[in-house]
């Protein structure tokens, strides 16, 4: 396993946001976490990237314990997080945003090559490279957030609601990008409200309900599951 989360609990004050969640991410796969509002999807992802302290359980990445590391150290281990709401740096240019993604890297030539790759993958970002990030559309900002994460040269990409607030055409575009990135060998954990999209993209899926893992299985199996269809796919 590339990443393994075992029996994780996270509390917000006295409230258990997640109680007992285990997630395993195999190398090269897309794993999705779906569930309703407040089920603990984002909390789970934020625990993975060190943004929230866990109160129980353990997280290992490439066999190494990474729980208790602060967020800025988790990145150094090869995990990039595209946060909910994109969270690009609004008053920085597109290029500055991307280069900030490579903050920890020292390999200057490889950074230039990766920047070129990001621009190839997202031609729109190249066109806007000197523009302030806040002046871009939601879809472009999402691409920038993904590009920024790729600039850290991660081995695992965590994505929180990449489809949120975007027009269907753009969502389709983002979905394609996720597939391409994964096809190039990058493992992905995808948290999505849009369960249809998530199950379509993912190899394996976890369904969270009120802080617990309610179900898990291969994505296509869950897609056919009666309960999942009724509760999350609206079918």
């Amino acid at each position, binding site marked *: 396993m590339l990443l393994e989360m075992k029996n994780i609990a996270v509390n917000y004050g006295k409230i258990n946001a997640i109680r007992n969640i285990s997630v395993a991410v195999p190398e090269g796969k897309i794993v999705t976490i779906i569930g309703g509002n407040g089920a603990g999807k984002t909390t789970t992802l934020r625990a993975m990237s060190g943004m929230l302290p866990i109160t129980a359980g353990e997280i290992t990445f490439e066999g190494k314990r990474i729980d208790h590391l602060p*967020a800025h150290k988790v990145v150094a281990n090869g995990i990039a997080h595209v946060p909910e709401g994109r969270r690009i*740096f*609004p008053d*920085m240019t597109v290029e500055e945003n991307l280069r*900030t993604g490579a*903050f920890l890297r020292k390999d200057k030539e490889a950074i230039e090559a990766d920047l070129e790759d990001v621009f190839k993958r997202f031609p729109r970002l190249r066109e806007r490279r000197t523009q302030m990030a806040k002046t871009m559309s939601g879809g472009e900002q999402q691409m920038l957030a993904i590009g920024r994460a790729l600039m*850290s040269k991660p081995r695992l990409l965590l994505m929180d609601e990449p489809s949120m607030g975007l027009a269907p055409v753009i969502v389709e575009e983002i979905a394609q990008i996720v597939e391409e990135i994964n096809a190039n060998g990058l493992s992905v954990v995808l948290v999505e409200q849009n369960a249809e999209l998530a199950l379509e993209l993912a190899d394996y899926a976890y369904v969270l309900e009120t802080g617990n893992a309610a179900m898990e299985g291969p994505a296509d199996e869950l897609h056919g599951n009666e309960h999942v269809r009724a509760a999350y796919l609206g079918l």
Partner: protein
Amino acid sequence: MLDLLAQTGLNAVYAASYISLVAVGLVLIFGVMGVINFAHGELFMAGAYAIVALYAGLNVPFFLAVAAGLLFVGCLGLLMEKALFRPLKDNPLGGLVASIGFLMILQALAVMGFGVRMVHIPPVTQEVIAFSEKVRLPVARLYVIIAAIVLLSALWYFLKRTKFGWALRASAQDPEAAALQGISITQTARIAMFIGAGLAGIAGALTAPLVSVNPHMGHSVIVTAFIVIIVGGVGSLEGAIVASVAYALVHTFVTTFWDGVLADIVGLSLMLLVLIVKPTGLFGSADRA
């Protein structure tokens, strides 16, 4: 008349120089730490007392004493970050109150060390650049102007062209997202506090021979700095510089042609006017105000 205008213009440039050094530091600290540093005027004062102690007291060469003042006050900034702002990280109001406490401590220390009276500092240089019979720029003032231009340009370059500069701006705009890029927020806070405090310190050190140095000198400086950053748009470094120049021009001209009290009134009225017309300040954006 033309001479008087030119002379007043020069005076305004000098005032704009030290005001912008103080204001930019204040904005930088606010941007990165999210804290309004009420002790910023006292950091300016501490820089002036570094000159009192080293240059006037121990006969250390002036520019060496200025450099020491910069480092000393920069380190005071680091101390504030560690002792006050980091423990109160999730409590911006707490940070503000703690900085008021720190202001009082610094004032008390200055009184204990040097007394309440104004300290006389021997002039660094008597040289004057005479543009004409009546238009003259004392070289000691020129030092302040040069320091402001050099330091603010260097800061500009640092923020816009270097990796750590981007890290600083990223932490100011979204600390959580910055951490996700591998940026240590504690480290960027330290850098911001050192630079912000250091700028106030060097402004105090360089102006010390030109003003009356006393434990309460920080007061008028911080009031001016607050006006300037509100007019410029809280959080905007460009705004702080532009507003410093504008405020210094208005204030100096009104002081010269009418009087100082009226100049304060005009300055504050301008601030009110800006707040009415554009509540976010000249360069502020709604989402960051």
